[in-house]
């Protein structure tokens, strides 16, 4: 199951000692159900802010956001969120961290244990179920965080630079994992990143956001077939799309 997202004239203004700071918007964006959409923009453009407002975790200064036709006016709960810093808890093992999502929702741990094992197995963690986060590599921790965001089968996944803190090779592996997970579940995914390569590789559509105050400057449809193999990513069409987006940021002087 997946849901559509509708963002209308959304703005965010942060108060500060030197007066209000226009962080974002106004932004209009509609996302069809089951799409993988990336928000790409330079640091400080408000893309994470938009994601947090969408999740109902940050007040909206102006405009409105509907998820599955319902107005967002508090924390969304029918959602899975992956943050940049992993938010695993040290006192639980890998399986326990994934099932924390279930326990926090008052659901029965037993009903989801098998599903958790399957999910963790699908990202290669079947032998690490009873390891604690501090015994894992950064990539394994983030894979666990993916599974925790998926265990309750939410129709919407929000990811805030989930690969941002990882080394280049691990990022590459996790992109593959993410694409596979998405292809089997087909949930609506909104993915915040500052990596153009990553956005083009993973998305059905890349939403390009300008420097602060962030506005949508272009929506680039990515029609490439999946899975997006290395061969495809080295091909002319992939490189053309990456180049097109880079050109926009070059125009803003941010790269």
């Amino acid at each position, binding site marked *: 199951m997946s849901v559509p997202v509708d963002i209308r004239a959304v703005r965010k203004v942060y108060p500060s000692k030197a007066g209000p700071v226009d962080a974002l918007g106004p932004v209009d964006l509609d996302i069809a159900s089951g799409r993988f959409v990336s928000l790409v923009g330079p640091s400080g453009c408000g893309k994470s802010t938009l994601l947090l407002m969408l999740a109902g975790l940050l007040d909206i200064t102006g405009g409105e956001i509907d998820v599955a036709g319902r107005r967002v006016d508090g924390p969304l*709960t029918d959602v*899975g969120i992956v*943050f940049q*810093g992993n*938010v695993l*808890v040290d*006192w639980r093992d890998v399986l326990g961290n994934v099932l924390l999502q279930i*326990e*926090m929702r008052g659901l029965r741990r037993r009903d989801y244990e098998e599903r958790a094992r399957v999910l963790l197995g699908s990202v290669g963690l079947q032998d690490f179920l009873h390891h604690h986060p501090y015994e894992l590599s950064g990539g394994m921790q983030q894979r666990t965080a993916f599974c925790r965001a998926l265990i309750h089968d939410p129709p919407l996944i929000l990811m805030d630079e989930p690969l941002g803190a990882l080394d280049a090779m691990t990022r590459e592996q996790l992109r593959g994992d993410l694409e596979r997970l998405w292809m089997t579940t087909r949930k609506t995914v909104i993915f915040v990143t500052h990596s153009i390569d990553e956005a083009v590789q993973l998305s059905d559509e890349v939403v390009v956001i300008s420097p602060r105050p962030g506005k949508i400057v272009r929506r680039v449809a990515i029609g490439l077939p999946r899975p997006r193999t290395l061969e495809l990513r080295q091909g002319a069409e992939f490189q053309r799309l990456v180049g097109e987006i880079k050109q926009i940021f070059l125009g803003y002087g941010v790269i």
Partner: protein
Amino acid sequence: MSDMAMEGGSRPWVAETLTPILFGVGCFALWEGVVQLFHVPLYILPPPSAIFTQFVLKLPRIWEYTLVTGQETLVGFAASILLGVPMGLLVAFSPLLRRTFYPLAVTLEMVPKIVFAPVFISWWGLGFLPKIYVVVLVCFFPIMLNGILAFTSLSTELGRFCLSTGAGPLRTFFKVRLPAALPQLFVGIKGAAVNATVGATVAEWIGSDAGLGFYIQQAVGEYRMDIAFAIIFMLAALGLFVFWIVILAERLLIPWHVSQRAPVQGA
């Protein structure tokens, strides 16, 4: 696991356990030697052998008073935890208390609280309870202040995760906030454990007819340094015992925390 740790086998045990014991024995031998060599008078610095003799001779009395001081220490310490942790929790989540009680507590923390001991003794007399009050006075603040820190320092992202699950405040507290707070709570509890024996001993010192604090004052008054040192060793053992209880609780409750893991090689 590094190769170094693997091949070590019995050597880390020797290094970890035997070295401190040998060092301790060496210190005592040096002490004994210096005192004997320079004929230091007994009423100034007794040699370890004399201290040990008195420890054995006076053991019935020392042990009786150890039970008195130990009881004051443990009861006062336990009461401080039972008061300090919930109070820290209340202040952490009540804006009103944070504006009223918190500044008062911080101010009081700056006062050398042991000065209240004679006041308490004069108010409530020489019995057991005023000793408990003094112990609570010196233990409560580190526990409460660290408790406030512990319950307010949940990371923003973990807090957002909790909100996105729709869990209520109670479930969030028991599943996330409380376990996340335990390491910082133990910082306060360990600090208080060190204070606890100090509070009990000084309170006895000021006004009491029993306990190690009372006994040491008597021994020093009679220039019996050998007895005084025997009592000091007993107090050291009592302090270590209280601290050991806390360390044991910490190992049981937060085996996952970084403070409980094996030290990093070479760090």
